[in-house]
């Protein structure tokens, strides 16, 4: 009986089917895990960015697409961040080109003696990193008789001017055909109506293509967060100009647009003790700059590259 009884039980109770992973499923699962891990790794910069940047900063649009009230919001946020990070009360303006102006610079190489006061003035005016002595101006000490910058030196020190040398200050030439603008993959840099090539520091991705493209070495990269003591921060700032730049973006000379678009002269010009620097509006027929172009021997740097600089050098 027992055997009879047991048999149907054994017959009814089917062996449990163990759902072993088929190889297909195992491979699928493995790749799904890998894919998920790769996805997490891929978005991890975003998570880190989220820790360092506010949602508003992350969602901020390109400068040229911002409406006036959005600009006001952005500027208010930047001013608050400067207060928080640097302890300085600053006002960030949004200076737009003055209609009917095209800014042009000229330097009298017969007068410039390479003392470097312009370099220092730029450093202070534009809130550059103090430790690196960063500046938009580089002065090249050149042997007389050539304009080949390869033969120049930027490391000269001591008493200037030396008898067999002349001094060539080089900064952004605000080219009419700017190679730096052409290479930007995200259009974070562009040329404005008054000729100034500007950078939206909040749109720049820091690829440094523009730095490589510039034949004048005029662009600078922020390798680290600029350190400026609170009492040395220039509070007179502008969004496209001298506001303190974030780390990892490219910056450049803007002809001090926070000054020049308000009618004032650039900081490097005011600092020059020799009076070698001349600045003005080339569209104004009575301007200093037009007289120089008409009456002096005027040169431009690396003319053969076709960059059409808005920056002239002259001798007299």
């Amino acid at each position, binding site marked *: 009986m027992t055997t009879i009884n047991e048999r149907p039980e054994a017959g009814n109770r089917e062996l449990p089917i163990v759902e072993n992973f088929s190889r297909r499923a195992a491979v699928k699962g493995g790749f799904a895990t890998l894919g998920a891990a790769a996805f997490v790794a891929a978005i991890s910069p975003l998570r880190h960015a989220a820790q360092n940047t506010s949602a508003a900063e992350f969602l901020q649009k390109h400068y040229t697409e911002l*409406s006036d009230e*959005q600009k006001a919001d952005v500027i208010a946020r930047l001013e608050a961040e400067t207060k928080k990070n640097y302890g300085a009360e600053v006002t960030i303006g949004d200076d*737009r080109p003055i209609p009917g102006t095209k800014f042009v610079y000229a330097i009298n190489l017969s007068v410039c003696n390479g003392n*470097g006061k312009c370099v*220092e003035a730029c*450093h202070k005016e534009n809130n550059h990193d103090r430790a690196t*002595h960063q500046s938009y101006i580089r002065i090249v000490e050149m042997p007389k008789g050539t304009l080949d910058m390869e033969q120049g030196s930027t490391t000269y020190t001591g008493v200037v001017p030396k008898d067999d040398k002349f001094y060539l200050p080089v900064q952004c030439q605000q080219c009419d055909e700017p190679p730096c603008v052409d290479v930007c993959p995200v259009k974070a840099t562009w040329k404005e109506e008054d000729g100034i090539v500007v950078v939206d520091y909040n749109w720049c991705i820091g690829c440094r293509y523009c730095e490589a493209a510039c034949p004048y070495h005029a662009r600078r990269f922020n390798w680290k967060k600029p350190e400026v003591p609170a009492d040395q921060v220039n509070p007179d700032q502008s969004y496209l100009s001298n506001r303190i730049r974030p780390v990892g973006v490219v910056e450049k000379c803007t002809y001090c647009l926070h000054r*020049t678009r308000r009618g004032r002269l650039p900081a490097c010009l005011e600092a020059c003790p020799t009076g070698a620097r001349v600045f003005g509006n080339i569209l104004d027929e009575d301007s200093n700059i037009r*007289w120089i172009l008409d009456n002096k021997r005027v040169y431009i740097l690396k003319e053969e590259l076709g960059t059409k600089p808005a920056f002239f050098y002259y001798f007299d």
Partner: protein
Amino acid sequence: MVRLANLLFAGVVCAVISMVIVTVTTSDRRAPSHSERAHPHSGLASATTGVLANPATFPIVIRKPAGPPQIKLAGTDPQGRSASVACATCHSVRPPNFDNQTAQSLDEFHQGLQFNHGQLSCYSCHNPENADELRLADGTAVEYADVMTLCTQCHSKQAESFAHGAHGGMNGFWDLSRGPQTKNNCIDCHDPHAPNYPKMIVDFKPRDRFLDLQRAEHDNHK
């Protein structure tokens, strides 16, 4: 596997919904902003035309010396006060000696004056009749404050460049409709007795990678 697929699908649906929400909200924001943006631009244009209507409202100010120079006396009085005297204090009672061409021949005052200004002598520029004035080559007296008139007699090229902003430093505004401009005087930069611009010492250097010290030494050895 079904659960994973469901989760993925849910994720995709969430992403699509959030994208739609973001585009809708931003386009909502953008619509009024376009009309608002047009207004400030028109306002700006009218403001600038208003400025253009009265151009050059601010002057170009050329710095001037306050007046004739004063000679600071070497000693102090019993109260410890120092004093300075006008040139005429001595020169009004001493007849001019036209034999003195340079500072070397002086035996009493102004000894050791560094003079390096071509073939000029003292009374080429100083007025022998009034020590507190200067004198042009044609004999016209000139105030010390108007010293640039004197310089311009010989340095007309520099004066022309100066008039067009191509010589001499300046401060203030390039746009005279917005503010004044201050220009240097000749003697702000040039000592009239030794007018060569002085040598200077470089004290500020950027420390970027182009200024790496080793690289500089390497360049020099080549």
